């Protein structure tokens, strides 16, 4: 009996030591990987993670900015490199039904399975098409919103295909003839 107890004690002791050792090793190993990236772990229940690109247009790096002159020729793809992230953004100009023009930007990752999107439309940005599983996105260009599509004004809603939510947007602001990205939803 005493022997059995002693054996169990040794087992527990050894097990605890092994667990402690594994923990001691794992902390720096995993910590070195996660490091400053851990701040991003806040996905919303609607499937988007907000990433701050710039606080305001005043202190935004020039490499993120897209001149309006360039946008007038058609949509522009820009790979925004923020910290460790790469965010594929498509900038463009949407022409509303009342004739006014709005500069916009969207993250060009399909909300279905994550494929890169092809831009549709010529000079003005009208929508996106996914080459993988065939989802289509169309911008709501009615200033009063599109209630029949359950979409707000400038929302890139799903017009057909298997995607489950509208495209994730990049919040933009225009200053001195340039479009600056502020917050990207990935």
């Amino acid at each position, binding site marked *: 009996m005493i022997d059995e107890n002693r054996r169990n004690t040794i087992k527990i002791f050894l097990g605890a030591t092994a667990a402690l050792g594994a923990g001691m090793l794992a902390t720096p190993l995993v910590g070195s990987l996660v490091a400053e990236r851990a701040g991003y772990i806040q996905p919303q229940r609607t499937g988007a993670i907000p990433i701050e690109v710039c606080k305001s247009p005043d202190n935004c790096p020039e490499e993120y900015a897209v001149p309006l002159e360039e946008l007038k020729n058609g949509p522009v793809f820009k790979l925004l490199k923020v910290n460790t992230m790469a965010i594929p953004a498509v900038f463009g100009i949407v022409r509303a039904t009342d004739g006014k023009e709005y500069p916009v930007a969207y993250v060009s990752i399909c909300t279905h399975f994550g494929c890169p999107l092809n831009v549709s439309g010529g000079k003005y940005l009208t929508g996106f098409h996914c080459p993988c599983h*065939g989802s289509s996105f169309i911008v709501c260009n009615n200033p009063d919103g599109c209630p029949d599509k359950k979409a707000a004004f400038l929302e890139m809603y799903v017009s057909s*295909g298997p995607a489950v939510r509208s495209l994730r947007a990049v919040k933009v602001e225009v200053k001195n003839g340039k479009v600056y990205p502020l917050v990207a939803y990935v």
Partner: protein
Amino acid sequence: MRWLVRLWELILERFHLKEFLEHPVPRYSNINPLYWFGDVAAVSFFLLALTGFFLALLYTPGMAVKEVPTSALMPWDVLHPKKTETVQATQSYLSVYTITYLTPFGFILRQFHLWAAYMMIMAAFVHFFAKFVLGSYKRKGGGALWFLGVLLGFLTVNQAVLGYILPLHLDGILALLIGLNLFRYFDYIGIPVGGLIIALLGSNYPTDAVIKMIYVAHILVVPAIILILLGLKIQGILYGGVSPPPVRDQELAKKMVDDKEPFYPHRFALMTGQVFLQISLLLLLVAFFPQPLLEPWAPGEIVPAGVRPPWPVMWYYTYVKMIDPFISVGIPIIMVLFALVVPLLDRRGGSSISERWLWILIAIIYMAIIGYGSVLGFIIEIPKQITPFTRIAVPPDSAVPYIGTPSPIG
């Protein structure tokens, strides 16, 4: 010559290899093809490790984009003829391009690795179904081996996908993007998988760090786990024996099990033959059916129409196109989980075919799900995409590109 023989005998003696070499192996497992495919998969793994070592030396991962003249692209690599003078390619793509087309014997090396990978997947599938039909998990120790086998199969498919991503050709980048975003469906039900991916890899879009991580996983982490599990499995088979013969007659089964040959030289000669024949088959496939190194792609370029996944995941592509995403995303998880619990569900009765027709039927249905999807994916273009019954209405903050009310220009 004399001293060579003595050296060999010394090695056998000092490392107690004689016990291993002379251990008896039943004859029926040497003769019945249903017992061969595990070996084929294992040998493929070692051939992959061998070729992979040289490929790892030659390959440099990276997302840096460079211009390549269109004339450098081989006509069999592009989906549609390119109209521009130059195309953009990533560092990884150029690296694999250099291995395949500008290195002596690099073409053989890469093609051999690719075909060996295909053969490993194929052999693993056949092995899985053979053991499923035979009910090998019913013998003592069989359940544990089955469990290891399912894990190994899962890792094999993982390894194939990781390897497919590494050249960063168009299809590889698409596979990577899908891999990085697919499991974000868990975000919708409150499990922060999307955040975890970004926390671990730093991005949910390919960057240098992501590619490096995939490279390390493909050449080091996953193979190491496969090697450990494979070692455990071989140990289990060595001491627990191969699965019993699929006959109902107990006496006959016992007779078959007792009819044994020593591993060396009998089984050893057979295995040598198997290795050489396998290398031969792979080299013939390289010679007669070389696979294209698909076309390059860089972020921001248009994705041409008609991109299809490779055959090991073609069945999944078919179902993804036909079924609601919230369900289709779980299909592989359900398939793996079901395979894991099969030994717990199928416990009664013997292991002969007439006694377990129900489970053989289930095995056939399992096979048919994968086979039907694969064939369908290749022969028809699924005409109309489904409309999911789960469209999520999102609040404007993540969908409208303005903070506050949109302001027009001009």
